[in-house]
């Protein structure tokens, strides 16, 4: 299911990949509309229990966990469209962080009794794992997690949220639950030393940046779609405002940004396993341009909505806030530009190197 090599350059997703994403998209279209977001926000709950149960039932928690440990053994390219769908829906629950990043990291470590127990519960959908990675100053969804995997001094520790002191750091995004954690880590909680942790933390960062880029792209497309829907309805000077070029051209510009972030994202997903300067630069490129697309699209959507766009009532602000948050999550623009610079200034350049990677034969 993961690699269905066609033995030739082919940029298309497989039917299985499209189908998985389609199921997630449909579920979120049913259960994660702006009205649902508002209901959750007013309730003050961390998660929509019904929605999270339905998501868990899809069995995606183990998507990127190896089959030998009980996961589905999929690759990031199989999950990228799912992450994009989560961005499009502004999903509050941590499907991407848990299934896309934290759990595969935990499962990739040398398994002990403790790690195996946590992985099994997480694969069963009973708990989520939250990750404290040095790329991020906060741990997202730490309070609702069943286990915290925390990087400290380049080693990895596994603790239960009750064993550390969590301080809530309220975010402008009403659905992001950010925490700092203090205390509770010791030799006994360490599950991976520096040697083992380094490469795995690096690959978690790559997945984090990749799937965050995917969510940002989804956010960007949602903002354009919201604005287009409004521009078709809203009348001024006796016509829908979408007939005016001043409105059309702004939305077209945002869509162009999206169209040229998308293939970068998909190429990054397809090559992430190379784990070299080429694949990392591609991921960073995707993260940068997806952030920019989300920024342009969100601001354009606000502008197209006019005064309504600045109101609490119109839904665009949920997406704007998520875009602001994710732009600096799993590495901000300066970090990612640095990785691109490393590849551009030291790697092979030119049209024959679009798909070059370190291990490729000449």
């Amino acid at each position: 299911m993961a690699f269905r090599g066609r033995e030739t350059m082919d940029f298309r997703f497989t039917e299985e990949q499209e189908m998985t994403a389609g199921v997630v998209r449909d579920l979120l279209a049913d259960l994660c509309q702006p009205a649902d977001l508002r209901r959750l926000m007013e309730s003050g709950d961390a998660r929509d229990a019904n929605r999270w149960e339905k998501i868990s039932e899809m069995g995606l928690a183990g998507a990127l966990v190896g089959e030998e440990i009980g996961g589905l053994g999929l690759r990031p390219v199989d999950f990228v469209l799912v992450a994009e769908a989560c961005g499009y829906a502004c999903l509050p629950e941590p499907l991407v962080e848990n299934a896309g990043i934290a759990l595969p990291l935990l499962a990739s470590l040398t398994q002990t009794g403790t790690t195996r127990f946590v992985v099994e519960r997480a694969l069963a959908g009973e708990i989520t794992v939250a990750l404290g990675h040095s790329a991020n100053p906060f741990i997202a969804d730490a309070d609702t997690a069943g286990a915290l995997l925390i990087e400290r001094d380049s080693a990895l520790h596994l603790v239960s949220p009750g064993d550390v002191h969590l301080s809530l750091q309220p975010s402008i995004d009403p659905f992001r639950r950010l925490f700092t954690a203090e205390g509770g880590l010791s030799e006994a909680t360490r599950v991976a030393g520096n040697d083992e942790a380094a490469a795995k933390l690096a690959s978690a960062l790559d997945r984090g940046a990749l799937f965050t880029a995917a969510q940002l792209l989804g956010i960007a497309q949602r903002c354009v779609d919201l604005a287009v829907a409004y521009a078709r309805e809203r009348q001024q000077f006796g016509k829908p405002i979408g007939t005016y070029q001043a409105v059309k051209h702004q939305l077209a510009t945002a869509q162009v940004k999206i169209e040229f972030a998308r293939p970068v994202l998909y190429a990054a997903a397809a090559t992430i396993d190379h784990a070299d300067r080429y694949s990392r630069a591609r991921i960073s490129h995707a993260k940068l341009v997806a952030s920019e697309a989300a920024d342009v699209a969100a601001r354009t959507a606000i502008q197209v909505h006019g005064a309504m766009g600045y109101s609490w009532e119109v839904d665009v602000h949920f997406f704007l806030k998520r875009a602001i948050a994710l732009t600096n999550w799993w590495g901000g623009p300066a970090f990612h530009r640095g990785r691109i610079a490393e590849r551009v200034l030291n790697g092979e350049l030119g049209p024959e190197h679009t798909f070059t990677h370190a291990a490729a034969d000449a």
Partner: protein
Amino acid sequence: MDLTYSPDQKRFRHEVRSWMEAHVPSLPLPSFDASREGFEAHREWERTLSQGRWGMVTWPETYGGRGLDLIQWLIFEEEYYRAGAPLRVNQNGIFLLGPTLMEYGTPEQKARFLTAMASGDEIWAQAWSEPQAGSDLAAVKSSAVRDGDDYVLKGHKIWSSRAVFADWAFGLFRTDPASQRHKGLSLVFFPLDAPGVRVQPIAQIDGETGFAEIFLEDVRVPAFNRLGGEGEGWTICMATAGFERGLMLRSPARFQVAARKLVDLYKAHEHEVEPSVREAVLRSWMDTEAYALSIYSTASRLAAGGHIGAEASTNKIFWSEMDIALHKAALSILGARAELLRSAPEAGDIGRWLDGYFFSLAGPIYAGSNEIQRNIIAERMLGLPRA
């Protein structure tokens, strides 16, 4: 999704590379827009390409091609630009008219025009715009009046690229004098040396004459020269425009080579320039990569039977804006030397960046202005209402 070349694709790349290394002229040819001599030197290069059957690799073998797919075409283009091979003087023919002829031409028309096009024996100009029909192309007034087995052409075409030295032109003519707008138009070919044709070169921003006005006074051509049915000109013209904007006119390799040169220029001057220049250089590299990835993605889709749609318009906006930014980045590195002609004693490594910058400014205008492209995206891709 499999982003690795197959063994066959790798072998093909090496075949192209070897041929290019053996055949690409060691010195750049003189511009095909500045003199007959430069134009003919490029025609000679087209003949060399054609003799190696490299003129248009996607065409069927019958017409001098190799019947290859779009991925192979991209590989060919990558090696072509990597080798620093000359620009294609016959791009109006091979990239625009060729694919359209392939789709709409009769077997006799294909036999008559495609072979001579592929061999470089007939170089084509386009004759679409008129003084009062630019972005509003459907306002064309030039007429083709049926007279027995002939058409008699009359009118005034403008901004016809390559028309100064080319052999043939294809243009949009009103075959139904009573018709309005998109209806009653036909696509007709005419030799640029036919009696009644007068070509008036137009000096461009850089002084070269890359385009011209064409005055047609009772120019008689056989009805055989009409492509597609009478009155189908608009549909066919839009198909050509789709190819032009969509895929073939600006292959990614050209920009990727420019980005590589820009990075080299930056490295040579890294310590003299301000930090914002680095960002602009990285941005240009990213954009050229994004464009390449996007075209590979489109090529995969087309290979699986898809059609090119409004992404032709997103492509055109993206590459034209990218090309300007890339050249601006180069000019910012060159600083005060950017304005020098290459003949200036202090010119040093200024290269052709200024020429490239001027040419890039035309990008958002030709092949359908970017304003028109944004309308197309808004209406056909996003579903916004027409005005």
